């Protein structure tokens, strides 16, 4: 056996691994002995917040994970009713039946910290990881979204981060041939020390061909597939800065991985091929905590054990230790369990794609994970206690002392808007509201030929094909949303609003919301105030999901998003996915022709708390976010779907950040050609609330048959008013009495809106090109 220098394992080392004293005790009891060094490594990652959800689990348990009316029993795959949840949280991703014998599989995940350290590779590997979650379930990934948040663009570092992250997401997604069809981008001081990069992917699979990460069938071979294992990404090099390691060992161990989209593309094709062959029993990607986490989870789900010969694992670097091999997070690797006797065939199939596939172990019945290294047993621990019975904490919760202060907004003391035209232009130029075309033009949004609505619309809309390429009439709509400022002012209301907005965006295409996934980005769970934010947010998420009939089928929690004690705003990123039965009948979010009537659905209230107008024009981030009437939202979804299906609704655009004036402007210039609008409003409210207030539950509609639509709205119990018509080359908004509040040439307004990001990025031309280049 090769000589290994390993530190001696004790409480001290356990602490350096991030384990608490109580957890250390638990390990000793579980094993009845002191763990080996590799075993300690395994416990530390399996029981880390990231893998075990130890602080979040008791909250997440409250979320609805099944469709309304769906029984608890197993469903009949192949003919499950549309909307049935086939796989809920716990697997790589969730699955929902969509008809035509197909299911949609989707999930969102964070890659925040790596992207801060190395934006291009951090973001790229984030995309790679979420793709593996999807195709490891047998689905072909067809569409991605990204939700990215940075500090102010005035900071050159954040310009560099934005460029790097976009290059990473594009570089990886474009190369693997999965369309990035939309996303969300925002900027705020609170992300200066901790950016957010959340990646979403969605795939299609026949309902009866969904694969799970299970190591079933005693005696079945366990096969390692994909890239060789290197020393990269071994957890928290920082945690391990101990005397037992000489300086060099640590310096040699990169914490950030480099993505290899080419290998991933080959893996996608090879895995899908292999899964169709009938030789695969279970499959999972080696994500966080690599080989350890994947093998434990697979064995745990199947109630089996695994026996592994670590020296068979393909290695990229010399002298890798068992500890490193078990914990490495090298990318583009999968773990498969095949039928006995099929392993040779499977390995050859991968060889066709020039991918390495090696039998590294087999499934056992004793429920233990046994790992040998050159004949010596280096790990021997029971699977269940590690994977399933990980610690679970009910962390203390405290309402932030200054919450009242945050929420205080005395509208009477706010100076009224005296120059609405100027306000509109300021908002159009605000990075949070400006066009994000500079970003999404760098993403291939067309590959696979299914993109009906790409980036730039409310929700992206993607046509569904069978694996053999035959098109269906179905399409899926998806949108990623969160207003972090609202969540900071009121995490409960803010999260409800995020779900509502995402669902509303989806409904604007004509699709019916089906289910959702979420990525909960928060600060340290060890702070009671943060834990309060988290609990409130999950409470809101559950309530909204129930009310809108969109079960939570997958998700991800990212804690510890803080730097020097300064946490980010609570940022629960939501993606609602919706289904459209007839892809030919859909609505877009821009005017499609001049001469259409403009109808506003929903009610505008005097709500300015947490608005972009208040932030941009008065420098205030206070108040309570607008309230959400979930019953109204639900009715609105039905109205939109029916109105689109009936052909009455051509354009539907959700009124969100920046309010009615911004939404109107977007309708005018986000289409292939600009079309103006003339709108008259009743000045029943404060002007800034009327034009820039962000009351929820509103949608702008363009229709050729206003009467029919108004009747339909009345029948559905949705307030609706005709406010103007499309046409011309100007955006004009005024009162019925004839006061012109806003009157601007589209060309000029559109230029402000579309130049806002590139202008800021070019100003700091400098830090751009540099190290972000990979090719």
């Amino acid at each position: 056996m090769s000589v290994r220098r390993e530190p001696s394992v004790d409480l001290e080392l356990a602490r350096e691994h991030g384990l608490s004293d109580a957890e250390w005790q638990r390990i000793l009891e579980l094993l009845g002995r002191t763990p080996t060094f590799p075993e300690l490594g395994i416990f530390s990652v399996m029981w880390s917040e990231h893998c075990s959800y130890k602080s979040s689990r008791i909250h997440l348990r409250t979320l609805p994970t099944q469709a309304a009316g769906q029984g608890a029993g197993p469903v009949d795959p192949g003919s499950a009713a549309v909307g049935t949840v086939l796989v809920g949280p716990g697997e790589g991703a969730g699955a929902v039946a969509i008809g035509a014998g197909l299911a949609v599989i989707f999930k969102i995940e964070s890659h925040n910290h790596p992207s801060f350290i190395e934006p291009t590779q951090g973001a790229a590997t984030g995309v790679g990881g979420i793709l593996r979650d999807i195709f490891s379930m047998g689905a072909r990934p067809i569409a991605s979204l990204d939700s990215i948040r940075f500090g102010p663009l005035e900071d050159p570092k954040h310009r560099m981060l934005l460029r790097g992250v976009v290059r990473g997401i594009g570089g990886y997604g474009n190369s693997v041939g999965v369309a990035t069809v939309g996303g969300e981008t925002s900027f705020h001081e609170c992300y200066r020390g901790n950016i957010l990069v959340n990646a979403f992917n969605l795939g299609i699979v026949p309902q009866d061909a969904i694969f799970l990460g299970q190591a079933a069938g005693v005696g079945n071979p366990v096969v390692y597939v994909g890239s060789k294992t290197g020393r990269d990404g071994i957890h928290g090099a920082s945690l391990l800065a101990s005397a037992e390691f000489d300086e060099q060992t640590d310096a040699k161990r990169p914490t950030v991985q480099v993505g290899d989209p080419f290998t991933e593309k080959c893996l996608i094709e090879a895995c899908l091929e292999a899964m169709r062959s009938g030789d695969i029993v279970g499959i999972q990607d080696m994500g966080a905590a690599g080989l350890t986490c994947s093998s434990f989870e697979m064995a745990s789900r199947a109630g089996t054990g695994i026996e592994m010969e670590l020296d068979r694992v393909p290695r990229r670097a010399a002298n890798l230790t068992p500890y490193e091999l078990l914990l490495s997070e090298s990318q583009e690797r999968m773990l498969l369990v095949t039928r006995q006797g099929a392993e040779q065939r499977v390995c050859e199939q991968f060889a066709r794609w020039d991918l390495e596939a090696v039998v590294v172990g087999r499934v056992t019945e004793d429920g233990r994970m046994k790992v040998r290294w050159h004949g010596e047993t280096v790990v021997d621990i029971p699977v269940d206690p590690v994977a399933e019975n990980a610690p679970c904490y009910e962390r203390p919760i405290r309402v932030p002392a200054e919450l009242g202060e945050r929420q205080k907004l005395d509208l009477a003391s706010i100076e009224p808007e005296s120059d609405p035209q100027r306000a509109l232009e300021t908002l159009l130029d605000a990075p949070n509201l400006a066009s994000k075309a500079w970003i999404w033009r760098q993403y291939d949004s067309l590959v696979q030929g299914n993109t009906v609505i790409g980036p730039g619309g409310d929700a992206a809309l993607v046509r569904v094909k069978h694996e053999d390429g035959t098109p269906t009439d179905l399409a899926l709509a998806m949108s990623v949303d969160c207003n972090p400022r609202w969540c900071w002012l009121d995490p409960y209301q803010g999260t409800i609003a995020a779900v509502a907005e995402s669902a509303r965006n989806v409904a604007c295409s004509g699709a019916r919301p089906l289910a959702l996934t979420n990525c909960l980005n928060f600060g340290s769970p060890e702070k009671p105030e943060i834990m309060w934010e988290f609990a409130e947010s999950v409470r809101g998420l559950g309530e909204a999901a129930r009310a809108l009939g969109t079960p939570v089928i997958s998700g991800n929690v990212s804690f510890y998003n803080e730097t020097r004690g300064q946490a980010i705003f609570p940022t629960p990123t939501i993606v609602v996915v919706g289904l459209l039965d007839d892809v030919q009948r859909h609505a877009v979010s821009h005017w499609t022709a001049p001469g259409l009537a403009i109808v506003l659905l929903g009610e505008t209230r005097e709500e300015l708390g947490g608005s972009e107008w208040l932030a941009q024009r008065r420098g205030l981030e206070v108040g309570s976010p607008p309230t959400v009437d979930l019953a109204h939202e639900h009715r609105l979804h039905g109205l939109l779907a029916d109105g689109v299906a009936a052909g009455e609704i051509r354009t539907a655009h959700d009124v969100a950040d920046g309010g009615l004036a911004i939404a109107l402007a977007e309708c005018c210039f986000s289409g292939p050609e600009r079309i103006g609008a003339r709108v008259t409003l009743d000045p029943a409210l404060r002007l800034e609330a009327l034009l820039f207030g962000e009351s929820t539950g509103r949608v702008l509609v363009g229709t050729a048959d206003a009467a029919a639509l108004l009747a339909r709205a009345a029948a559905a119990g949705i307030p609706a008013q005709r406010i103007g018509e499309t046409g011309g080359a100007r955006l004009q908004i005024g009162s019925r009495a004839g006061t012109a509040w806003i009157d601007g040439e589209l060309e000029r307004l559109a230029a402000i809106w579309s130049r806002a990001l590139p202008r800021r990025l070019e100003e700091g031309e400098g830090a751009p090109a540099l190290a972000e280049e990979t090719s």
Partner: protein
Amino acid sequence: MKAVVCVMLKPDVLDPQGRAIQRACVTLGYDRVVDVRQGKVFEIELRTEDRATAEGLVRELCEKLLANGVIEDWRIERFAD
């Protein structure tokens, strides 16, 4: 004065490009090619005749701009006139 600077991925960081090239070499029959690493080279033209000044400048540039120390190493390959 001209400086030639090489920026390479750190030895333990995966270099997918280098690996692909090495494989291509073998496929082409060059099986003596056991490893390839691909990096970036910068030829930097500096307005100075002084070697020490140039070196100081280039070092700063490497640290600030040309390499990301998290995954890359750099070296000044040579100076030329």
